[in-house]
């Protein structure tokens, strides 16, 4: 306690020194005067009294010195003195300081920005209580080679897990939808989620205002209630607490607002703005895969035990509900399920910027070497005058610390700007992006990084300073610099070449992957096509019939617009997700004992295949008449045909939804397969093709079709595709008008071109590619500067020697070749090391690449020769100067 106080006082003692000094002088003078008077009283002469008093005090100067040391922190004052000195020296060489600070600032800034993203997205726990025990529920069907990734479940399975899983401390299910919000203000489409009331308990979150759903609100038939997001509450209701208890219209249904979530709550996705209670009952639980699940591991349980138990519970359930047969549980940590997709990319980016930092440190270390050699005399003089080794080390470290801290500050500023840019312009599918911002951890990381960098490049010249007591007489005729010094520079230079090569190879591999990805056939024609989605308010369009009619009116309205060549609709557009899945039975049994994979079901209208650009491989398409008459027909895709009808022609055969035999609603009707179409990408490019089944929208699902009798997706929400003769964007206004003509209350969502949907699918790869390319370019530029600097220095140091050589008859060209050879040899060794590193480290990149080997010889060879070329040019410029040396001038300069 007392020592802490004393320490604080001493830190305080660093300030206000002049006054304290004056006080001490006063005090000591008073002391002396009093002592002198006493001595005189004791019979001394005035002179003797003064002498004795001064003697007993032990010297005013020494006392003052001892007092000062006690007053504040002497080591700290030494350090500040060194820092001040370093600052003065650096200010005298602004070019050196500027180059060093800028180089470091760029590299540190890149590290700080990527680290910010890595930290906030990957490392920081999700903002839920004890979030490490949260699981995302996921399933696989190993018998059809789907090991995992079916992240949907049924109501039946939800109840099974909620009631019986003992390894789980709560299960919640939710959906990701959107709905139309109206009542007070304009109608708008907002992202929504239906969630079981258990969600708040599982995630351990509380509403900021009001309450979350009660258990009975999750029962079918309970009065509709809604919880708003903080964003929606602020945006639409001006943070009015009176919103609780009020009625809003969701899809036209009056719904009571019961709560507002805190601003940090972003589940399942950040843009979710309203939550409604998902309603079902155990008795009428659906067997459709419409729900996503999240659960909390009970204390003592592990993912492995939970997986075993859940798989057993699924097997129990599958006895009465065959469409869940063969399924295994593959739960994974919730955080991993949210960010796992980008984890590899982010780590790779972090590695790449760390490499850039190493290159930058090598560059700055080189600068320091040049300086320390230029300052050898100064150092020697200091040593001769008695500067201890420790003082010299401190002095040099002060310089590098100053530079690296300045670099750190510049880096923070760069990171601040970069992070803002990433949040604003980065790929929107980067998870947790709203949580990304600079914080104390990042600032701490940056400072530690700059200190490490400072020590790293500050220590290299120090290694050379330490054993130099003899350097005073080394300043005679220095013809060639000593070997050891060159050795250090060459190691740095070779290292830079190696690191830069690794980055250039990575960038090359990413570029090749991106190229390959762009040539993947998505299964549709992306040019000149506008897409948007239309959601019908349930209150006005309460039946499938009504929905089909209004969709047809919209299709007709748009088809008659000028510049529109075709228009059609589907319950789910390519590359926008899985939407609706169900199992399938074929009339003629296929006796190979294999369970069949899941299928994605689509309701379509208006010559969908032709409009989107899919090819009809066999049979025929679905016509307007089929839709209007509600023909019991389907068109299947190639993937479905291959798995359900191996070696057969599906056209003419009959299929139906695989519904449990004991269903109270009887068996679904048989549907006749009339055609086979080409595959189309469902969620991502370059994924193995999933089976699709297309049906006329008039026989799919609708608001009046009970969930238990559903055979296809709900047609209340349809995605439209409009083919145009001109720019797709030019018809947007006309299309909006046509829709409003049919019903002004219908809102359009996600208006974008088909090309934009396709671009987004390769966006993450593009993002990674661009960032790695930036890292590689920075490393390359720094590397070139490094090589150039080293070689220039070598030439300067050897000017005299070169002069002698030229005077003795050496060819200027031969001299230039000698310099290039010297630099080239180092570059070749660096390239060899870089190639080896990239080869051995190639595993890191595998998961980011597409269609190209991580050891692609073309990329390796291309990058190596590019780097060699650049290195030779960087050597050649100084070499040309060497060749131009005038022997007379060079020798006279001695």
């Amino acid at each position, binding site marked *: 306690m*007392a020592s802490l106080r004393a320490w604080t006082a001493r830190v305080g003692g660093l300030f206000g020194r002049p006054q304290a000094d004056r006080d001490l002088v006063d*005090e000591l003078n008073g002391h002396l005067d009093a002592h002198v008077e006493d001595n005189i009283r004791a019979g001394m002469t005035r002179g003797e009294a003064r002498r004795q008093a001064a003697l007993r005090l032990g010297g005013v100067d020494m006392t003052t010195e*001892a*007092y000062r040391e006690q007053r504040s922190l002497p080591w700290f004052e030494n350090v500040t003195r060194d820092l001040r000195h370093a600052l003065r020296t650096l200010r005298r060489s602004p070019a050196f300081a500027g180059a060093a600070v800028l180089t470091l600032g760029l590299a540190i800034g890149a590290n700080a920005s990527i680290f910010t993203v890595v930290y906030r997205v990957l490392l920081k726990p999700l903002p839920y209580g004890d979030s490490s025990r949260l699981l995302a529920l996921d399933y696989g069907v190993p018998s059809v080679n789907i090991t995992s990734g079916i992240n949907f479940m049924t109501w039946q399975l939800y109840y099974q897990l909620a009631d019986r899983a003992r390894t789980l401390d709560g299960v919640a299910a939710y959906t990701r939808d959107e709905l139309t919000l109206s009542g007070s203000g304009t109608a708008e489409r907002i992202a929504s989620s239906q969630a079981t009331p258990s969600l708040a308990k599982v995630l351990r979150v509380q509403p900021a205002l009001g309450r979350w759903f009660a258990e009975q609100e999750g029962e079918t038939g309970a009065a509709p209630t809604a919880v708003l997001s903080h964003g929606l509450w602020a945006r639409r209701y001006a943070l009015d607490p009176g919103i609780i208890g009020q009625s809003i219209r969701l899809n036209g249904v009056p719904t009571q607002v019961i709560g507002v979530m805190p601003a940090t709550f972003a589940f399942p996705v950040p843009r979710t703005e309203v939550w409604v209670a998902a309603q079902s009952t155990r008795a009428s639980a659906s067997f459709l895969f419409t729900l996503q699940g999240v659960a909390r591991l009970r204390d003592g349980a592990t993912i492995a035990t939970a997986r075993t138990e859940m798989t057993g519970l699924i097997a129990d359930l599958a006895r009465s509900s065959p469409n869940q047969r063969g399924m295994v549980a593959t739960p994974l940590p919730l955080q991993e399920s949210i960010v796992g997709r980008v984890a590899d990319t982010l780590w790779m980016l972090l590695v790449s910027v760390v490499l850039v930092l190493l290159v930058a440190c090598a560059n700055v270390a080189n600068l320091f070497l040049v300086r320390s050699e230029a300052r050898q005399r100064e150092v020697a003089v200091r040593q001769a005058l008695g500067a201890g080794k420790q003082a010299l080390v401190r002095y040099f470290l002060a310089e590098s610390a100053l530079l690296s801290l300045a670099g750190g500050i510049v880096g923070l500023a760069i990171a601040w700007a970069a992070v803002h840019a990433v949040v604003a312009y980065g790929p929107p599918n980067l998870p947790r992006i709203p949580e990304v911002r600079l914080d104390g951890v990042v600032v701490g990381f940056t400072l530690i990084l700059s200190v490490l960098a400072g020590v790293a490049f500050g220590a290299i010249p120090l290694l050379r300073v330490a054993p130099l007591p003899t350097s005073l007489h080394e300043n005679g005729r220095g013809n060639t610099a000593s070997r050891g010094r060159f050795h250090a520079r060459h190691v740095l230079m070779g290292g830079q070449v190696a690191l830069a090569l690794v980055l250039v190879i990575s960038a090359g591999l990413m570029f090749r992957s991106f190229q390959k990805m762009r040539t993947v056939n998505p299964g549709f024609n992306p040019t000149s096509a506008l897409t948007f989605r239309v959601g019908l308010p349930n209150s006005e369009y309460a039946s499938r019939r009504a929905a089909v009619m209004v969709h047809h009116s919209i299709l007709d309205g748009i088809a008659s617009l000028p510049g529109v060549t075709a228009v059609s609709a589907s319950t789910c557009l390519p590359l926008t997700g899985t939407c609706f899945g169900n199992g399938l039975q074929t009339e003629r049994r296929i006796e190979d004992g294999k369970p069949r994979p899941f299928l994605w079901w689509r309701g379509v209208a208006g010559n969908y295949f032709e409009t989107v650009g899919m090819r009809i491989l066999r049979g025929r398409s679905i016509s307007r008449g089929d839709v209007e008459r509600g023909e019991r027909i389907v068109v299947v895709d190639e993937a479905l045909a291959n798995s359900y009808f191996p070696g057969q022609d599906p056209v003419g055969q009959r299929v139906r939804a695989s519904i449990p035999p004991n269903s109270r609603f009887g068996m679904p009707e048989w549907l006749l397969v009339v055609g086979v179409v080409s595959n189309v990408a469902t969620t991502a490019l370059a994924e193995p093709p999933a089976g699709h089944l297309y049906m006329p929208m008039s026989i799919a699902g609708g608001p009046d079709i009970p969930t238990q009798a559903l055979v296809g997706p709900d047609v209340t929400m349809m995605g439209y595709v409009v083919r145009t003769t001109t720019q797709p964007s030019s018809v947007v206004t006309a299309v909006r008008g046509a829709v409003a003509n049919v019903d002004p209350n219908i809102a359009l969502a996600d208006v974008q071109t088909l090309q934009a949907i396709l671009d987004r699918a390769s966006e993450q790869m593009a993002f990674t590619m661009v960032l790695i390319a930036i890292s590689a370019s920075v490393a390359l530029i720094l590397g070139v500067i490094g090589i150039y600097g080293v070689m220039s220095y070598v030439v300067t140091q050897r000017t005299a020697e070169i002069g002698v050589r030229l005077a003795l008859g050496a060819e200027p060209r031969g001299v230039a070749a000698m310099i290039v050879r010297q630099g080239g040899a180092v570059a070749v060794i660096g390239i060899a090391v870089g190639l080896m590193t990239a080869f051995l480290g190639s595993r890191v990149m595998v998961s980011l690449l597409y269609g190209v080997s991580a050891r692609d010889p073309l990329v390796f060879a291309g990058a190596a020769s590019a780097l060699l070329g650049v290195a030779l040019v960087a050597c050649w410029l100084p070499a040309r100067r060497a060749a131009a040396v005038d022997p007379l001038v060079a020798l006279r300069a001695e």
Partner: protein
Amino acid sequence: MGKTDVWQGTLALMILKTLETMGPQHGYGIARRIEQTSGHLLLVNYGTLYPALLKLEQEGYIKSAWGVSDNNRRAKFYQLTRAGKKQVARETRDWEQAQAILARFLAPDEAS
């Protein structure tokens, strides 16, 4: 027996004890008093006194204020704080304990 320098560490206790018995004092006064109390056996190097006073002040055991001395001079007076009083008691106790322990070692042939 010649005059002894003040042992390290004991000077602080002497200063505190002096201030406890004498009340507020200036530096010179404290030094003289310590010499007197020791029967002039201790030789206080006055120079060491001031850093010691500063240290005690930094630790919060004493506080100082400028005032006027007996002979009408400006002088800095030191005074015990409450923490200082406690510290005197604590150090006195420690000292006595240490002394008692040492005494056992030094006592000739005490029954063990």
